[in-house]
């Protein structure tokens, strides 16, 4: 097969190696410079190693692993969106609400029924909050629930 996983990845890595190596040549000479080894020596070596490995992968790739179907990709996308949403809303919603939503959605997407997912979400978010914020004195954001405390 011409477009094998390893081959595509190898090409990406080759591009990265060239860009990284070029970046190394652009690094400013250190103040009072003219040392035998500057800040660019080590990165240049790395660029060469990565480039050679990438070329090897392009020339001699391993057999491709199967990628998941479009449906599973959708599922994975949901997970990523949930995690990013968690990070985004954590300060505003507060730990308990955001964690409740995050855990409940994740466990629902992994196959739990809605009711048990909600229950696990609730139990975990409150339980973990109690353990870490109150038990271990690790401050977690209160967010919207801040007025209640």
């Amino acid at each position, binding site marked *: 097969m011409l477009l094998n996983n390893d081959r595509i990845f190898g090409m990406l890595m080759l591009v990265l190696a060239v860009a990284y190596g070029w970046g190394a040549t652009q690094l400013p000479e250190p103040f009072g410079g003219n040392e035998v080894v500057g800040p660019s020596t080590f990165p240049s070596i790395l660029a060469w190693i990565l480039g050679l490995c990438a070329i090897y992968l392009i020339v001699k790739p391993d057999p491709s692993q199967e990628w998941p179907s479009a449906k599973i990709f959708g599922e994975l996308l949901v997970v990523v969106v949930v995690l*990013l949403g968690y990070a985004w809303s954590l300060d505003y919603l507060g730990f308990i609400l955001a964690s409740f939503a995050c855990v409940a959605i994740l466990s629902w997407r992994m196959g739990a029924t809605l009711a048990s997912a909600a229950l696990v979400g609730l139990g975990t978010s409150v339980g973990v909050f109690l353990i870490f914020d109150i038990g271990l004195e690790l401050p977690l954001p209160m967010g919207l629930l801040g007025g209640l405390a």
Partner: protein
Amino acid sequence: METLNFLMHGFGVALTPSNLMFAAIGSILGTLIGALPGLGPANGVAILIPLAFSLGLPADSALILLTSVYAGAMYGGRISSIMLNIPGDEPALMTTLDGYPMARQGKAAEALAISAIASFIGSFIATIGLILLAPILAKFALHFGPAEYFALFALAFATLGGVTGKNPVKTLLAAALGLMIATVGIDHNTGTPRYTFNTLELYEGVDFIIVLVGMFAISELMFFIEAHAGAGHQMVVLNKLRLKMSDIFHVLPTAIRGSVLGFVAGVLPGAGASLGSFICYTLEKRLLGNKAHFGEGDPRGVAAPEAGNNAAANGALVPMLTLGVPGSGTTAVLLAMLISLNITPGPMLFQQHADLVWGVIAALFVGNFILLLLNIPMVGIFVKLLSIRPMYLMPIVTLVASIGIYSLSHSAMDLYFMVAFGIFGYVLRKIEIPLVPVILGMLLGPEMETSMRHALTISDGSWNIFYSSGLSIGLWAIAILGLILPTVLGPLLRGKMNKARQHEGQKV
């Protein structure tokens, strides 16, 4: 005698009430982590590092907590091997061969008890080995100059794939990626910003803890989603324990032989716990021949690999502590912990932080006793936990991982980075590029670059310095062997391990 003195001092550190408590908590957590599906030892320790860090534990307590977790995880891995026929981690693979058949014959409790005793013997003997060997190696390592260190780091990467590793080019590529991530930020030697794209967040570099947790925990969650493994597995019923002293004496010689072999395999670069347990099992099988029924539920077939992999896990601490060069994924994570506590492992560790090192070594002993005590009476509870379904467990684990990362600097930015590295880790695993070299590259990158610069400064720019001493030539030779051997031996050994497994599978 000097060593004994230090060790006594170490026990003084490890036996303070608070540290004793941390050792106990760590042992319990570790056993859970090892037993629960989808949470290998490396993953579990990785998740706990930022938490130990944010809770502001003193260095010795944090270290004792996490090494107990490490030791506990090695114990826990066997539980799912025996009860589910699913190895908790790779080294526990060989334990399934006789452990699961024993469980099916209604001797699950005996299998668990014997494996706990074998694990104890393995760890115990290996800790003694560690005490004897580590100071000697540390003294020897004082002769290393920067050129030798550079070669040693190269050796660490070359042998990381292990003799059973698949494609050495992919190991090398992964290492290069990790080293490249490590160069982001202000250059320590000259103050030049590198690859920062004028972004303030990148000036301090990329925090390896975020990469670690993202790559291990988040990518694991994605793999679970992909495999639809939310429902869990069928489990064997646990019977009541009927273990006689004679049963223990029966497996004792096997366990001791396994421990010694496992320790050696753990210390050597590139061998590691997987190979350790494999060698122990096959040798024991050959040694006992027809007198034993290996593969059909022979207790000695449980004892050999368990003693072997626990001994190897402790043996792997020798190069990690004395040279700062870990030989396996989990020890790489322990190295991450040391570095995040601002402790540089290596020969100087035994001089500068003698209290700490010996405290940790003593904690290994203490933790080992706690684990044995926990594991015989409490194994029923751990087994119950196995039946927690991943669809509830994985989201909770993800949550705890996120708390750890968030608490590092209380910014959502770190969480975004964590998710991004999770996706990256998922892609890398999909194309079978190992993650451990990436992590190790990030950890060793700064040290490696510094030693290269020192060497070149000493030699006034001549690259000959890297192969000017017998020691460094030897290190390079092993490194090159480490890259070439797997391509020759790898398919052979892997084939044998699979064949052994399939063969036993048919009998069951």
